[in-house]
């Protein structure tokens, strides 16, 4: 995927539309979330695993202008290969501070605590109400600003 096609699919930075990177290994679940997000005007790039998500990020970074290539990341925790928490840790260690939302099927206290420690914006236990996810996104200050910038 060349940088231009990426921008075509994904929208160039500053276009006013929030760009979401979504990582979820269950196909139907990913489709559902992506559809719901797109319905509300978000631009969504889908990845079926944590590893795919990382490589996607890398490609976007190389192709983009160096600025944040994703405005928000939504990721399942339990995926084959790299899991959500590890992705979060990796990103934070690279000083990428975009909002990060985690989804999990087995959200015990330990997992919630680690998510908080690593600086996740929110964590949802499956099954959750998609409306709640949309509300969190809408209320995240960073994303709010972006949408306002475009007017």
């Amino acid at each position, binding site marked *: 995927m060349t940088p231009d096609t990426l921008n075509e699919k994904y929208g160039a930075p500053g276009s006013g539309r929030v760009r979401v990177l979504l990582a979820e*290994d*269950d196909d*139907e*679940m990913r489709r*559902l979330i992506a559809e*719901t997000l797109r*319905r509300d005007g978000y631009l969504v790039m889908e990845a079926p695993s944590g590893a795919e998500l990382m490589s996607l990020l890398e490609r976007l970074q190389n192709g983009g202008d160096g600025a944040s290539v994703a405005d928000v990341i939504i990721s399942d925790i*339990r*995926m*084959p290969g790299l899991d959500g928490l590890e992705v979060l840790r990796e990103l934070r260690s690279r000083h990428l501070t975009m909002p990060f939302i985690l989804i999990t*099927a*087995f959200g015990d206290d330990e997992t919630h605590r680690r998510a908080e420690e690593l600086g996740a914006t929110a964590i949802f*236990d*499956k*099954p*959750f*109400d*998609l*409306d709640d996810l949309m509300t969190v996104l809408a209320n995240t200050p960073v994303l709010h600003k972006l949408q306002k910038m475009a007017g």
Partner: protein
Amino acid sequence: MKLALKLVLAIVVGIVLVLAVDGYFRVRRQLEAFEGDMKRDHAAMGRALAEVVADVWEIEGEAKAFEIVESVDKRKANVSIRLLGLDVLTNSIPSMEQAARVQDSVLDGELATAFIDHQGGSPFLHTFVPVIPAAAPVAAIELAESFAPHEAFVRVTIIRSVFITIVTVVLCSLLVVAFGMFFVGRPLKRLVEKTRKLGAGDFGTPLKLRQNDEVAILAEEMNLMAERLARANAKAEREASARIAALEQLRHADRLTTVGRLASGIAHEVGTPLNVISGRAKMIAKGEADGGEIRENAVIIAEQADRITKIVQQLLDFARRREPRKERVDLRHVVEGTFTMLRPMAEKRGVRMVQVNDGVSTDVEADGTLIQQVLTNLVLNAIQAMPGGGWLTVSFSRLRRSPPLEVGAEEGTYLGMSVEDQGEGILEEDVPRIFDPFFTTKGVGEGTGLGLSVAYGIIREHKGWIEVESVRGRGSVFSLYLPCPEAPALDA
């Protein structure tokens, strides 16, 4: 107090020895002194008398000399003095040797003494002093005195000595016993008691002895030892209870792991489809879907519901296993049936499936459906282990085997069916757990980990077992063994 008796014995021996030796030497010295005194007396008296007698002999004649001696003798009570002619000199001397000696001495003009035992056993000292009137001895004065009084004295001394010895011994023994009991006996008894209590595990209060010697040191050391023992005991107890607690925790965690895994498995397997169903249904309800989309959503809802149903069925299957309904089954057909069912999936991944048989009879007494379930599970695992394609081989063998202990069957002939793949293989540490319920090496979402444990259970109910061999990177072989039917095989 046995110790005191030993000490007493030692003291007694010592005292007796010392006093006896001292007594002996004292008696001897006494006797010697007596003898010396007596001899000196005799010599003095004898010489003086001899001079006088010699003069009288010369001047007044032999008879006068005898007279004088007789009158002197009468005057001396304890000493008998005689004047003896040379010829009768030695008449009173019994011993030839002594007699000769005395004779010689006297003839030489020298004084001589001899001890002679008289009747009754009492010794007498005889002193012979030569009388020399002119140039040569003509006679000798014999003085004889009894040693008896001195002997009596010696006897008294000996008795006195013995008496003193006995008194000393008795007194010392009593003292030793008394001191022994007080300084050693009683404290030791207390020490013995303390030791006994220690042995029984009673660490109690320290033993304080009011003395300043080795026994007290021993008591102090015992106290220290008791303290150390008490601490070590307490430590051992703490460690034991800690170990028990840790074991309990492990057992607890073990139980939790299985239940926890089951719970997380269910949560994921059921939670995700539920999320999708809920989301899609709400979309329809809110009117966010129109026309064809409604139908699409409904289809998705139905699919996800099916997914949940399958999981519930699997769980129920795991919980309840039905009795195998055994009949004569040809395993080759079972394999073919399984291949047919899974061919589409295999082909999608480039997996080629083949059945191999070297003329081994593949008849068994088994529940065909259940065996098919097992085989399906094994073949499915094999296919999933080869995402890049490869060969899946099912082969048969007939051999005499001794089943693993838990099967509880005897050595016999078994039909082995092996499913071999060229996949990633299983990690060595996972192999022993591979048949455990809810154990899975797949990512969550690809299975609840029940398949192999169900399969194992089914084969066990057929009085067989499943084995696995795996080489990481090369592949795995799952072999199941079923007892050969008793009836002779139909093919050679």
